[in-house]
């Protein structure tokens, strides 16, 4: 059912085209054919009527001429006189001279064109003749007799016998059109008309044919049929003299004269019309074959059919074009939609873009739709994959967090270890600074002893004094070692401690280095709150920041290097601010200074762990806050830790 839709459109379009194009054309052809046929029939009937009248007039004219000739002959006194004297003439002179006399008279009438002969028979049988032969031997007397009888029976003075056998056997015209008149005289005694003789005029059937044939429309057949159903005139000469079926003429006479009617002859239809001669009763018949009319109109029919055929071909061509340009793309589109619905569409399938019209646009947008569909599908597929991954991830997240935490702890421990070791290194450097001066002093004291010996000033008292001084120095150094050892011993338990003490302890480690480098330390301690936490770690933070400041000041070779340490309380928090005039931290590095392994120091000098560790200690172990920002002169670090009340 779905499949048939495109072809249905095609069939519909074809049917509509046919209905709107070809059928009206054919109807128009049929109508114009019929109208033309009607008009043609009308004009043919008019033509036939005119021609028939003209032919009838011609026929009557010929008859008139012949009849007037016959009247003249019949009224000729010499002829009637000869016929009245009619007797068996023995004398050749009488015979020949009478023949000559009548011959001269008749010869004068022979000028009428078409006449074959004029014959006069007296009642006793004497034959006077002029015509196409002089030889009147073997005259057909039986013909003469039957003509005489027929003429006697006729009511008209001239009896038109029709196409007859020539009474003159030697004439070149065996068949002639014969008119007969009985020559009569009034018997003065009985006052009854008595026949004197018979006048026969033979007219040339061939000449009549040729003259009657003139001005005959080509397609029509005219016939003259005499009262005995013999053909007097027919276009085909071989029919002249033959007899038509008497039924044929009888059937004709049922119709009205000069009115066209249909007549079927053999297997052909004719449009027939007839007229009847008043003089002779002969029929003048016109036959027009219907097929002549039809063939004259064949042009209309053939042209209509040709155009209809051409239109049909055009319709087919148009339908094919329609199929190619519209139906097929639509059908393909439908197929693809069905495949989309079924999910069997192959990726990358596109419709061929052919035209730039509406269908072309449709195809274009359909292709765009397909592409979008494919992209959406691809996106869906990726999303699903990601979802799957995510689910997988969610499933393993806890393990991983634990794992990461463990890793972080391990890393932190490593870092702390590293930073401790680094701090230790720094401490050793600091111890070296702190020990240099006492070691020099101890060395000088010892050197002074041999000198005093030589000078002799070595007394026990001097020795005691010197020993006591040296022992003090050694005592100081030993204490320093203890301090260091305590400082770097990690505390497991949180404890309360005083801020000032821790600051002092941290600074004490760096005093030597600061002095050596000429760095001025401003200590502004306003409050001394008690903190709870890990004092050593806290001190380590301060130490770290101070060490960094010291490093920067040295590295940047700042004139009048200065470090300020302020301690105060603010909003329940013990705040220590450590600032320097070392020029500050680059703005882009400000956010990252607390990241592990971030260092601005020269390669090999910084570990990048110090500040990270410091932030970890303050913010995670002591719930405080460590932050850094720049001042006009340099960097400033702020340590905020809640204090015990």
């Amino acid at each position, binding site marked *: 059912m779905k499949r048939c839709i495109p072809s249905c459109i095609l069939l519909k379009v074809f049917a509509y085209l046919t209905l709107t194009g070809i059928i009206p054309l054919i109807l128009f052809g049929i109508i114009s054919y019929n109208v033309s046929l009607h008009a043609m029939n009308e004009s043919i009937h008019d033509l036939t009527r005119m021609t028939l009248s003209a032919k009838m007039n011609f026929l009557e004219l010929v008859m008139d001429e012949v009849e007037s000739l016959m009247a003249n002959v019949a009224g000729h006194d010499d002829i009637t006189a000869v016929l009245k004297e009619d007797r068996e003439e023995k004398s050749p002179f009488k015979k020949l001279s009478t023949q000559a006399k009548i011959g001269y008279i008749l010869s004068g009438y022979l000028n009428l064109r078409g006449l074959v002969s004029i014959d006069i028979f007296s009642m006793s049988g004497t034959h006077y003749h002029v015509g196409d032969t002089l030889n009147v031997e073997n005259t057909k007397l039986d013909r003469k007799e039957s003509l005489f009888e027929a003429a006697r029976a006729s009511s008209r003075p001239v009896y038109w016998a029709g196409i007859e056998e020539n009474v003159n056997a030697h004439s070149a015209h065996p068949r002639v059109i014969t008119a007969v008149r009985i020559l009569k005289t009034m018997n003065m005694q009985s006052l009854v008309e008595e026949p004197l003789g018979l006048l026969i005029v033979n007219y040339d059937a061939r000449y009549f044919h040729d003259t009657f044939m003139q001005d005959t429309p080509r397609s029509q057949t005219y016939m003259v049929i005499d009262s005995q159903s013999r053909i007097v005139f027919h276009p085909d000469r071989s029919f002249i003299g033959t007899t038509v079926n*008497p039924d044929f003429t009888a059937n004709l006479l049922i119709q009205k004269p000069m009115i066209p009617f249909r007549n079927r002859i053999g297997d052909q239809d004719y449009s027939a019309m007839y007229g009847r001669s008043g003089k002779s009763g002969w029929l003048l018949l016109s036959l027009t074959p219907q097929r002549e009319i039809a063939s004259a109109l064949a042009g209309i029919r053939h042209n209509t059919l040709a155009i209809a055929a051409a239109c049909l071909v055009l319709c087919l061509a148009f339908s094919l074009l329609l199929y190619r340009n519209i139906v097929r793309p639509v059908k393909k589109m439908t197929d693809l939609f069905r495949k989309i619905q079924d999910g069997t569409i192959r990726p990358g399938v596109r419709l061929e873009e052919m035209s730039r019209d509406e269908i072309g646009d449709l195809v274009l947008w359909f292709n765009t739709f397909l592409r979008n569909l494919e992209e959406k599908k691809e996106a869906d597929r990726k999303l699903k994959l990601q979802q799957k991954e995510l689910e997988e991830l969610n499933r393993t997240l806890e393990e991983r967090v634990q794992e990461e935490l463990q890793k972080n702890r391990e890393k932190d421990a490593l870092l702390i270890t590293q930073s401790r070791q680094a701090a230790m290194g720094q401490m050793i450097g600091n111890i070296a600074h702190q020990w240099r001066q006492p070691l020099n002093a101890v060395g000088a004291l010892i050197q002074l002893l041999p000198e005093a010996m030589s000078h002799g000033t070595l007394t026990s008292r001097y020795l005691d004094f010197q020993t006591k001084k040296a022992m003090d120095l050694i005592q100081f150094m030993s204490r320093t070692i203890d301090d260091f050892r305590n400082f770097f011993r990690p505390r497991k338990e949180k404890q309360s401690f005083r801020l000032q003490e821790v600051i002092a302890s941290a600074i004490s480690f760096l005093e030597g280095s600061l002095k050596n480098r000429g760095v001025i330390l401003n200590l502004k301690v306003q409050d001394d709150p008690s903190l709870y936490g890990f004092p050593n770690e806290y001190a380590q933070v301060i130490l770290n920041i101070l060490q960094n400041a010291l490093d920067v000041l040295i590295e940047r070779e700042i004139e009048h290097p200065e470090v300020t340490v302020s301690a105060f309380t603010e909003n329940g928090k013990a705040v220590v601010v450590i600032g320097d005039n070392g020029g500050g931290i680059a703005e882009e590095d400000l956010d990252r200074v607390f990241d592990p392994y971030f260092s601005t120091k020269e390669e090999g000098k910084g570990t990048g762990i110090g500040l990270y560790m410091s932030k970890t200690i303050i913010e995670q172990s002591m719930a405080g806050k460590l932050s850094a920002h720049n001042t006009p002169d340099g960097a400033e670090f702020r340590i905020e830790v809640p204090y015990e009340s």
Partner: protein
Amino acid sequence: MKKIAITVATCLLTILVILAAFEACNDDRSAGPHQDRLYMAGRQAQDPQGQPSPSAHRTRVALVMKTLTNPFFIEMEKGARRAEQDLDIELIVKTGAKETSVDQQIAIIEELTEQKIEAIVIAPADSTRLIPALRKAWGKGVVIVNIDNRLDREHARKAGLNNIPFISVDNQRGAYISAKHVSDQITRPTEAAILEGIREADNAVQRKKGALRAFRENPNLSVVAIETANWKIDEAYKVAGQIFRSHPRIGVVFCSNDMMALGVIEYLDEKKRRDVLVAGFDNLSEVQDALRAGKLRVTIDQQAAVQGYEGVRAAVDLLRKKDVPAETLVDVRLITGKDI
């Protein structure tokens, strides 16, 4: 689907039916040439020889003779008709009404020329007046054959009408032997008369010469009258009356043809004159009684039929490019009462 298919099929079928109906208008073309079955009861009364149609072309030759009334020309026509049969041509026979109808003959020749006749065989009523008309016909390619009465050679030559074959009898000789036959029976001085034909006709002239020659050979004969009756029977009857009223003692009459002889005999019969010897020319069948009764002593058979036949044959030969002798003389025979 089904519905639409049916609709379309119906559409196409309708078109086909319309087309077929349209084309059917022309179907009765097949009717053939059985035309005689159309309205003929059957071809009865066939012509004996069929009507000669103009399309089946046959050579058309005209025989132009002098008069309707002289049986001599009936014989001539019969001979010509035989030639028509033998040579398979179409013969048209034309005559003037009377022996003197020269103008009518001229008109006949002109008409025949107009009708594009191929040959004219002519027995001229006049030896000179017909020449222009014949010359015109000849100029248009019509073959001319001269029979019976010779055209005037001098005039013909002047008119440019040359090499016209002539077929006739030796008229002078025929007249001579005819006149000689009656002249020989005259032993006492006797008056004689001659009735000549149309004086402008060469054969009339020749016959008069022949008769005169015969009469002059007999010293007993004196020719007292030479009159013309223009070949005519009734005119001869009248002329005979005039002659015999002037010369009642005439005992010998030579008539240049039998028709005139019959006219003379009629007069003599009326006057009950049985002593006059009449000589004729032509041997018409109508003179047989007179010959038998001795009213006509002699006539000349000039074989009119042979002349007619030969004339037509010469014309056809000329049309078929055969040689024809310039002059053909047909034998003359002397006919008396003994020959019947």
